[in-house]
């Protein structure tokens, strides 16, 4: 019965505090702990006990080496009139350098120091890798610095463990730790030895099953075979020395814990605690500090990307220190909210120097604690940022394409990036697309609403906007955006909120309106959307629309003043134009004759009557051509009748409405395109035919004549003059080389004028204008 083996861990929850800025009564527990600690060292030194493991706050090892502490400890002995005690003698013997006896005990294998988080925080309560890494690595490095040993074992304060922490410890070279024996007992799958033997955690950390003991008399001996198993006990240093001593007497020769001969089972271990309940450290008073320290930890994670200068790096180190102390003090059961607030205030003060990258004033108070503390994996990154950053919001972005918006934002952002802007786009997450992508200076972040399955579309959009704001606020910590650019009402709420929150100018592009889509506002949903459009238009500093038509609509429906609007025609994406397979379309295409194509609304100003007259003359000239005219309108039947009456049914086809695919097929097949308008403010269709490299004849009116330079990029005709049209047509038919050349040159001019690059240049102008207005106001 008696030959059972024992291993012992002695641990302590002495409070974490900034010794140098604490009141005397706060320091008292440290002094009395030091007395106990000395007693333990004495005990180990003189008796032939076997090795014990020590799990205490690493910060303490630094403290006992500090002259100020030694001094005050000395005074403590005197004031308490302990100068005749054994502990004082021992203290004097080593001149107050407790590291010396500790180092000796390590050498003669009587003590093994366990690593721990530097300020003894409950590790599961940390929320960033950065915070976790600094707590663990700093704890390890203190032991390495003062005792020249590399700890292999780790002690979880309060035994608090959560899955995944094993991985963090393994990455730091830790080999083993301890966990409540019940957690091993209930591991998945159930270990053969139940809770009586060590196991591997999923990531490969050896975990010993530990029992909490307060008194040697508590140990129950087990019968039978299991007697051969080693048992792992832990006792708090706060227990009386007698208890510790009787336990120490039972400890057996130490196996080197990490070197086990037998292969261990690998099992899933749950979250675990040694003490019953940690909720004691949460109360109404302390919970705001817990959340503050949580946000500070996240802040540190974000800010590490923002370190540009060495000055910032130095300040960051101080900020990290404040956080480590704050969270350590919080984890100590005795915390005064007073000192907690000081850590937070100081953090925020340091932070403002960090953001401004200004030097700390020479008299700036420095904590003489964690002096050798290093930052891990954190560097200053000299910034070569020359680019202005724009934050774009759009609910669709390729490869997610719902409507035209997606292509528009894609074309625009690529072109803006070529102009030297850095574009950050927040859009919707669908189909497991990556949450973040970067493509030639365009950064795409995808988010989804928390209520992603909400059947109510408007609620879903609300959720999407919340997620977009969250992402934007996150980005704003590390990016200085110059401008927000929101596309359509779907992202309007987010755009307006960020504008207000961050005092940034907001640009909105309105691609279409609910009023226009439905020819009025009738339902509740339409009303809701209509109102959102109104707020976005009113709240934006400048509104971009893509056509004259939209300009008029916005001025009419929303009464927007004209100077708030900027018209930037859409870019034309040539790649969209080569997707045509034409044979399947039910159109009167005749491959043996040359097709002359036109398209437009069947109204007088489009001049299709001129075209019919010209067709008649062409027939008389026995020209081998035919006309296809697409489009509908009030005059369609009239034109068809006229074709019939003039016996042109074989030469002219008014085919009525055509789909996009049919239009593209016709543009692809035709030899010549004609736009004989009497009035034409813009004439985007002519651009399209030119983009297909078709020689194009347009009337010398309105917007068209600005695009087509006669005999360079196309041909001009006199409006309302069929002779002029016949003349130009005949020229093209009889000069095929010239015709081809005109087509190519036409294409080039359109690509240049209506490319996304041009759109981006105009958008840039709007950006700059908006920024200037904003700074004047």
């Amino acid at each position, binding site marked *: 019965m008696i030959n059972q083996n024992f291993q012992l861990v002695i641990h302590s929850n002495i409070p974490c505090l900034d010794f140098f800025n604490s009141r005397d009564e706060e320091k008292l527990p440290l002094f009395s702990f030091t007395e106990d600690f000395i007693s333990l060292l004495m005990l180990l030194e003189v008796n032939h006990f076997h090795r014990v493991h020590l799990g205490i706050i690493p910060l303490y090892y630094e403290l006992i080496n500090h002259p100020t502490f030694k001094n005050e400890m000395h005074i403590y002995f005197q004031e308490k009139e302990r100068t005749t005690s054994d502990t004082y003698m021992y203290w004097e013997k080593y001149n107050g350098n407790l590291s010396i006896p500790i180092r000796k005990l390590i050498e003669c294998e009587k003590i093994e120091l366990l690593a721990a988080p530097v300020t003894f925080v409950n590790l599961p309560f940390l*929320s960033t890798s950065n915070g976790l890494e600094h707590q663990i690595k700093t704890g390890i490095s203190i032991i390495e610095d003062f005792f020249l040993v590399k700890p292999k074992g780790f002690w979880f304060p309060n035994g608090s463990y959560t899955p995944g922490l094993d991985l963090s410890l393994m990455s730091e070279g830790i080999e083993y730790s301890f966990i409540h024996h019940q957690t091993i007992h209930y591991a998945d799958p159930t270990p053969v030895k139940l809770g009586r033997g060590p196991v591997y955690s999923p990531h490969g950390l050896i975990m010993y099953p530990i029992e909490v003991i307060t008194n040697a008399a508590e140990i129950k001996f087990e019968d039978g075979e299991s007697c051969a198993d080693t048992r792992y006990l832990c006792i708090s240093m706060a227990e009386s020395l007698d208890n510790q001593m009787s336990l120490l007497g039972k400890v057996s020769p130490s196996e080197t814990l990490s070197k086990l001969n037998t292969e261990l089972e690998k099992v899933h271990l749950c979250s675990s605690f040694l003490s019953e309940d940690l909720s004691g450290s949460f109360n109404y008073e302390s919970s705001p500090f817990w*959340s503050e320290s*949580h946000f500070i930890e996240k802040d540190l994670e974000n800010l590490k990307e923002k370190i540009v200068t060495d000055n910032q790096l130095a300040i960051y180190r101080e900020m990290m220190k404040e956080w480590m102390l704050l969270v350590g003090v919080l984890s100590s059961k005795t915390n005064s909210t007073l000192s907690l*607030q000081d850590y937070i*205030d100081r953090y925020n003060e340091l932070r403002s120097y960090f953001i401004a990258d200004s030097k700390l004033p020479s008299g700036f108070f420095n904590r003489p604690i964690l002096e050798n503390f290093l930052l891990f994996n954190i560097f200053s990154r000299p910034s070569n940022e020359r680019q202005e950053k724009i934050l774009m919001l759009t609910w669709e972005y390729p490869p997610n394409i719902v409507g035209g918006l997606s292509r528009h934002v894609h074309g625009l952002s690529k072109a803006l990036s070529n102009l030297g802007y850095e574009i950050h786009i927040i859009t919707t997450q669908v189909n497991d697309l990556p949450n973040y992508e970067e493509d030639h200076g365009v950064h795409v972040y995808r988010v989804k609403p928390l209520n992603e399955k909400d059947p109510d579309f408007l*609620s879903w959009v609300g959720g999407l906007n919340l997620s977009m704001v969250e992402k934007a606020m996150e980005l704003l910590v590390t990016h200085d955006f110059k401008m927000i650019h929101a596309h359509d009402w779907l992202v309007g709420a987010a755009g307006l909120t960020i504008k207000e929150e961050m005092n940034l100018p907001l640009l909105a592009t309105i691609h279409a309106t609910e009023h226009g889509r439905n020819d009025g506002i009738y339902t509740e949903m339409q009303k809701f959307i209509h109102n959102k459009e109104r*707020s976005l238009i009113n709240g934006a500093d400048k509104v971009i629309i893509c056509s004259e038509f939209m300009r008029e609509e916005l001025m009419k429906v929303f009464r927007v003043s004209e100077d708030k609007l900027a018209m930037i025609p859409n870019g034309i994406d040539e790649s969209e134009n080569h997707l045509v397979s034409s044979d399947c379309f039910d159109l009167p295409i005749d491959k043996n004759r040359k097709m002359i194509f036109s398209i437009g609304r069947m109204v007088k100003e489009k001049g299709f009557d001129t075209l019919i007259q010209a067709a008649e003359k062409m027939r008389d000239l026995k020209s081998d051509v035919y006309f296809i005219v697409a489009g509908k309108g009030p005059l369609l039947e009239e034109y068809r009748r006229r074709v019939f009456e003039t016996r042109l049914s074989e030469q002219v086809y008014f085919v009525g409405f055509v789909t996009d695919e049919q239009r593209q097929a016709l543009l692809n097949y035709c030899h010549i395109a004609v736009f004989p308008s009497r009035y034409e403010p813009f004439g985007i269709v002519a651009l399209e035919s030119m983009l297909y490299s078709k020689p194009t004849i347009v009337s010398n009116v309105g917007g068209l004549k600005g695009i087509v330079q006669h005999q360079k990029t196309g041909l001009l005709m006199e409006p309302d003059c069929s002779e002029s049209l016949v003349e130009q047509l005949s020229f093209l038919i009889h000069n095929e080389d010239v015709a081809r050349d005109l087509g190519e040159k036409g294409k080039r001019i359109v690509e240049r004028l209506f490319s996304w690059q041009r759109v981006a240049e105009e958008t840039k102008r709007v950006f700059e204008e908006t920024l200037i207005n904003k700074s004047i106001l």
Partner: protein
Amino acid sequence: MINEIIKLKRKGLSFRKIAEELNSTVGKVQYQWNKYAKVQAPTPIKTDFTPIRKAKTTATQPLTEQSTLRREGISAWLVSNNRLITFWDIPEAKKRLISFYFDKDYSCFLLALRIYDVTSIIFNGSNEHSYVETIVPENQKHWVFKDLKPNRSYCLEIGLKITESKFHPILRSNSLQTPRTSCEQVGSLEKDIHSFLEDTNSPPNWIEHVSTYSYYETESKGGLKA
């Protein structure tokens, strides 16, 4: 109030001291200050491609947007085998967005906290096994849930009651698994354990500390697998 705060801040007092001085709370003082600081913040000026030289400000000058710590999120921590604590902070921006979007003052909505049982599922906001909803006071910022079942996974959402029946989430917490408390609960992870042991290059299927996922992210970015 803001004038007093500015005066005291110029004297170099901390928010806590100012709050004491004015017989107010730190939160209120900080809110007022941030509001003031925002108005004072220099407006961005048009530049060419060179960035604006950051003015060498001292800490006592009005803070810009980035100078304020970002407080946003909801976290859940296990504090014992069957108890968790959660705390949250809803940023002003989200409150404004909600009241703008739903066209109603934020204080009109009831604040609700939901705890979802999400054991063995990838939660998408509506596929939970069950949930419990609690209406919490508007300025409440933390809550304790007791008597959780063993070996279950939970996550929480804080949100608003848009209508009596409609809950709109604002923030979602991390997920937690409560510890097993008996050998009968063992076995539910069998498949996941097996597949993790087969391929330790990707994070396991059960809930782990957040650091695990960033570990695997950096590993794969570093191209270690290649």
